[in-house]
């Protein structure tokens, strides 16, 4: 199976590792070869968490610059920062609800303009699916479901060698039972957002 390379970037606390875990478990259930690596050294202290997930026949667990087939960003500035992982054929999915870094919150940096970010990403990649995933997560009943909203959008693109059902099953079995219902709703809303 030809490899599909996915990068997920997020801010510590946004649930990147859980989203990766759901995809990894879905791949295991579907008998799709999968390898993932994660860097989360100081995530709890406000840093960036990056996961690389390689589906299919490859042995590497990391993804070089310019070699991601899909980039999913849980935060717009982090999506832009990770653009070096992309190429002209890459599909990018990004939450557009900003979580300004602390440096910006206290006036020591400027947060990039959202429309400019969209234009830049669109110009350098094949496709950008951008929407307010925080809003959809809240609609689903839990702001913490931003990660699952984005999984829904990712699933809709059909780029991953994983079916909708198998990801849904992984959400059911791998996320906390109290949140399964809101997570499934979040998945649906993300799926629809990518369709529209």
């Amino acid at each position, binding site marked *: 199976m030809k490899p599909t390379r996915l990068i997920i970037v997020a801010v510590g606390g946004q649930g990147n590792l859980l989203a990766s875990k759901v995809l990894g478990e879905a791949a295991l259930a579907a008998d799709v070869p999968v390898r993932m690596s*994660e860097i989360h050294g100081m995530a709890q202290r406000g840093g960036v968490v990056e996961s690389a997930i390689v589906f299919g026949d490859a042995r590497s667990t990391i993804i070089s610059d310019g070699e991601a087939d899909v980039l999913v960003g849980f935060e717009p500035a982090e999506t832009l920062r990770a653009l070096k992982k992309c190429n002209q054929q890459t599909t990018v999915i990004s939450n557009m609800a900003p979580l300004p870094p602390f440096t910006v919150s206290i006036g020591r940096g400027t947060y990039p303009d959202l429309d400019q970010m969209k234009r830049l990403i669109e110009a350098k990649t094949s496709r950008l699916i951008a929407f307010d995933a925080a809003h959809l997560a809240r609609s689903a009943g839990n702001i913490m479901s931003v990660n699952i909203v984005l999984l829904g959008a990712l699933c809709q693109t059909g780029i991953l060698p994983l079916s909708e059902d198998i990801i849904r099953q992984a959400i059911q079995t791998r996320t906390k039972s109290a949140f399964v219902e809101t997570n499934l709703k979040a998945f649906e809303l993300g799926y629809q957002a990518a369709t529209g």
Partner: protein
Amino acid sequence: MHKLMTDEPEKKLLLLGNEAIARGALEAGVAFASTYPGTPSSEISFNLFQVAQETDLYFEYSTNEKVALEVAAAAANSGLRSMCMMKHVGLNVAADALMTLAYVGTRAGLVVVSADDPFMFSSQNEQDNRYYAKLSGLPVLEPSSVEEAKDMVPYAFDLSEALGEPVLLRTTTRINHSNAVVTLGALGPRQTKGHFEKDPFNFVTVPAVSRRLHVRLLDNIERAQKMSEESAYNFEEGQGSWGVICNGVSYTYVMDAIQDLGLEDQVRVMRIGFSHPLPAERIGAFLAACEKVLVVEEGEPYMEEAVKAFAQERALTLPIKGKGPDLFSRLYEFDPAMVRQKLAHFFDVPFTLPKAPDLSDVPEIPQRPPTLCAGCSHRATFYAVKKATEGLDVIHPSDIGCYTLGFLPPISMGDFVICMGASTGSAGGFARATSQKVVSFIGDSTFFHSGIPGLINAVFNNHDVTLVILDNRTTAMTGHQPNPGVDMKELNLDGYGKVDIEPLVKAIGVPHVARIRPYQLKKSIAAIREAVEFKGVSVVIAEEKCALYAKALRQAKGKPFQVSERCRNHRDCIHDLGCPAFYLEEEHVRIDPDICIGCALCAQVCPENAIVPLKPKS
């Protein structure tokens, strides 16, 4: 039941590398495990800590890596299969024990895991611990994947028992923190009660004994070399007259590169998984079959130098390259595209670089540096020290932990950090060598780990230093592991002692000891000022539970604060404290009530007393 206790051989689980290593140990029947936490090794021990709570496995968080290795060495020499894990720099701390343990050997299997960190994702250096194998004479195994890491652990135990020596298992971050599908083996039976057979002429390393033991160690290295020649973890694949010798994760990048470049019929690969002693005969035969050879290894040219020596011994003159200006670097970690490019360059085959986008028109993206958490008591202590020493020229030796981040603005307190415990030792040197004031910082776990000897030294040599012990009641940085000062009853665990820092410091003979609650700012500043003015050694113990740990224990009681109308926009709160709960809204300072934990530090700093508790909504 813990996931790693799943007793279903052939079942496939998605496991983190560190979980796979812990599982491998359980399949090997490990009975005794010890550690000092350190990224990227910490999840190995955390999983064993959990398993120990539901089985007869013995697990301990030891005070430091040297102690961890000593307890494991005793257990292994009493007949228990033992494992000791640490991050790479931890092996420096344990090295004194390791070097002579190599002479003494073990009676049951002992595996020492060294988790190296190329690129220093969360470390102060990127030393290559394969050299410890060479230095000590011990075997070292290096997995290339998560699955192999699991399988290598039982092999390491068997190898350790066959040689009567500890075996090093060296991983890198990309093994420890990768996930892959692992096929479970059977859980091994555990022998948990040992007996120590006295044998002083083999265990007591006086010179006459050690002279004989060193001979035995050299014999063992020869035996180990034969095992390395026969080991299935050193293998060849592919065909052709171009050769690649590689290890660890580099092997996976090499195999992907060969496939991507379509070189399956031109390149033969020798993967080294048992890298000390190296299989000299097999490498010699491999070289003899090649026209040119590229050695692909992260870190130091450990294999490259040996491979060149093997070629020289066999009068082989083929080109052998590895590190070099146009080839591989000793710096940082490798990645698949880099290895593909270097392979193509060395073997002179066409190659197109990945089409990375032109990012020259992307605006500067504000950095997202790690920062002390909202309500972190270290911030309060740093601020109190800054206020107490205003106007003085102060050096702040600091140490390894969350509080290392205090070196960043706006706190900017941290001037010298080299290794665990060095804040207490280096402080005395600065005090003697300069006329500057010295106020150093160390966390509770690091103090227990290796800060105490430096403090004793300061008392004995009468250095004029102030040590601030940031006692947040846990080992916060690595994920809240216990340390000797932790009240284990709070974790519902019985059978532990507890070491209190204040009586310990007093017993050392520190003449001036103060205890502060850092959120009580005025009192803290006064106590620190008094300590700094004291001529000689003074210690200030700043005690406040880590905010995240308190939250996890459901002990956090604080209520969020807000900025009231009284605010005159001095912004001392933002500029001096830099707490991540602050943000600006139309040039007005606001506090995010979802982030604020109600420590009230900013309320004490505000010159207008404008920061007040957020009133409950009516």
